């Protein structure tokens, strides 16, 4: 899939040549291609595809983890307001500065800040009941959405406002190798943590009280999972904008394939999510002459698939 996707694009490069260029970084092959071709593959498409895999994998595994912790299969990784916070951060940075680095950084920081706010808000009697968490997430999320709308309203409608809108629609367009180098370790750490404790998500999925009777320190485990999944999601959002639906849909497909046990569900969701986002991104940049924002496509594909899954599970149950 990755190699196929590398071969696709506005600049026509043959499949064999793509493979050769890729291998040339490992094996000493004689170049029979132009420098431009090499650059298209290695500088433009490769980072983009790697970002697609990381973002897709991170959103899907976080979605699966969040659904387990919240005991609800309709939860997305954005439930605690990451997307709304990150969106506001990005809009603010676009408005004040015009630096891609600062945009990524502020959106990451605000993404984390909004979840921290939601988490603090939901804490009662040293506990964080799931219902309170969801409600706090909604409160914080709508606050930041409103603030983002305000920024859009006051932004210069000729160039700042479109920039904000495009960023919010989500795209892997402006991902560079540097972004990948910085975010990759973060993704690896967060995803590893989630994978290490993945069986324990089963216990949280039975409800906090029940998990405690089985000997689980639910508050600590819940915090660890929320922090890891949130950082992974915020990293994804800060380089790609808001890409919806993946985090809800992919875990469902995973469940159809391997069942609800998070021991298998998490790795499977991650792999499917990575493959899915690369596929959709390939379509996004090749289907029309101008690129379609990927957030639109994931929703257009996601909604019908999700509707179909819902109908199917209804019949089965």
């Amino acid at each position: 899939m990755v190699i196929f996707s590398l071969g696709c694009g506005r600049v026509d490069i043959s499949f064999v040549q793509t493979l050769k260029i890729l291998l040339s970084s490992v094996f000493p092959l004689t170049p029979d291609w132009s420098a431009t071709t090499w650059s298209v593959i290695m500088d433009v498409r490769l980072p983009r595809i790697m970002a697609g895999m990381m973002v897709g994998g991170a959103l899907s595994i976080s979605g699966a983890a969040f659904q387990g912790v919240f005991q609800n299969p309709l939860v997305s990784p954005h439930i605690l307001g990451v997307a709304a916070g990150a969106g506001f951060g990005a809009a603010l940075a676009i408005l004040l500065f015009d630096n891609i680095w600062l945009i990524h950084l502020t959106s990451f920081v605000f993404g984390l800040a909004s979840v921290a706010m939601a988490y603090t808000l939901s804490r009662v009697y040293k506990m964080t009941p799931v219902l309170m968490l969801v409600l706090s997430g909604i409160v914080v999320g709508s606050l930041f959405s409103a603030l983002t709308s305000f920024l859009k309203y006051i932004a210069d409608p000729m160039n700042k406002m479109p920039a904000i809108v495009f960023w919010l629609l989500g795209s892997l367009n402006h991902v560079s190798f540097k972004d990948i180098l910085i975010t990759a370790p973060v993704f690896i750490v967060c995803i590893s943590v989630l994978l290490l404790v993945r069986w324990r998500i089963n216990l949280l999925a039975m409800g906090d009280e029940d998990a405690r009777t089985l000997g689980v320190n639910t508050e600590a485990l819940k915090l660890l999972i929320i922090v890891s999944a949130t950082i992974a999601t915020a990293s994804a959002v800060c380089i790609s904008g808001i890409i919806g639906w993946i985090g809800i849909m992919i875990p469902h497909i995973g469940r159809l394939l391997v069942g609800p046990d998070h021991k298998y569900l998490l790795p499977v969701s991650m792999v499917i999510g990575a493959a899915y986002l690369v596929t959709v991104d390939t379509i996004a940049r090749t289907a029309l002459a101008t690129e379609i924002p990927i957030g639109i496509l994931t929703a257009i594909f996601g909604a019908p698939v999700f509707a179909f899954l819902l109908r199917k599970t209804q019949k089965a149950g």
Partner: protein
Amino acid sequence: MHGRIDIRRLAFGYTERDCIFSDINILLEPGQVFCLLGPNGSGKSTLLKCIMQLLIPAAGSVRIDGEALSGLDANDIAGKLGFVPQTLVSAFPFTVAEIVVMGRASQIRMTASPAKKDRDMAMASLEKMGIVHLAHRPCNQLSGGEWQQVLIARALTHSPKVLLLDEPTSHLDIGNQIKILEIVNSLAKDGITIIMASHFPDHAFLTAHQVGILKNGRLLALGNPDDTLCEDVLFDTYGIHIRVLKVEEDINRKICIPVLHPHTRTLVKEVS
């Protein structure tokens, strides 16, 4: 033999002022069954959760073999006590085997998944309950009685010394009720101390060495069922007349017979 549970002066209230119960004292030797009766809303479930330390008691102590539970972490408590909830709804259709192996959580490292040993213990637990054939059934396709057996099997996988059951027979037909009570009796024979909340005074005669009635925040009539559950006590508890008769011959135990108000009885007859 271990599993001596000593509850002293236990009290609980959600806020400082209102008090759900106070001054609860229960002492059970290993293998004894305690039946906790009381009207709806008297706090039976709350008391069990307090014993399990799911709710932090306002006062008093729970000791198992002399060791106080307050201050122990969830992991250590699960090594001593098993808890079978009254109702549990799973958001995901885990299979019975996946549910039962969750009982091993306290013995499995934070970053690990169940090993073969854990899965074997889960299967042994299912075998003990006689429900091995359900192992691969999704848990949302079980009957009430099967689900209760699955939850007991899960609690047994962490080899508790004391088992707390919260109304294990509610929603069950009479066949399944008796099945669960027989399981309770056989677990007690194996040396597990059991505290069971129940709505049926008869269940005390069928299983319990001791019975207690929780009402208005106090534990009334603590003692063995035959001496404790008399007609006056049952009237005070439930507000209806219940005759307690001794059935001789091979049954040889007491039974409860609710006596209906004369007016209600004629009404029922007219309708039928």
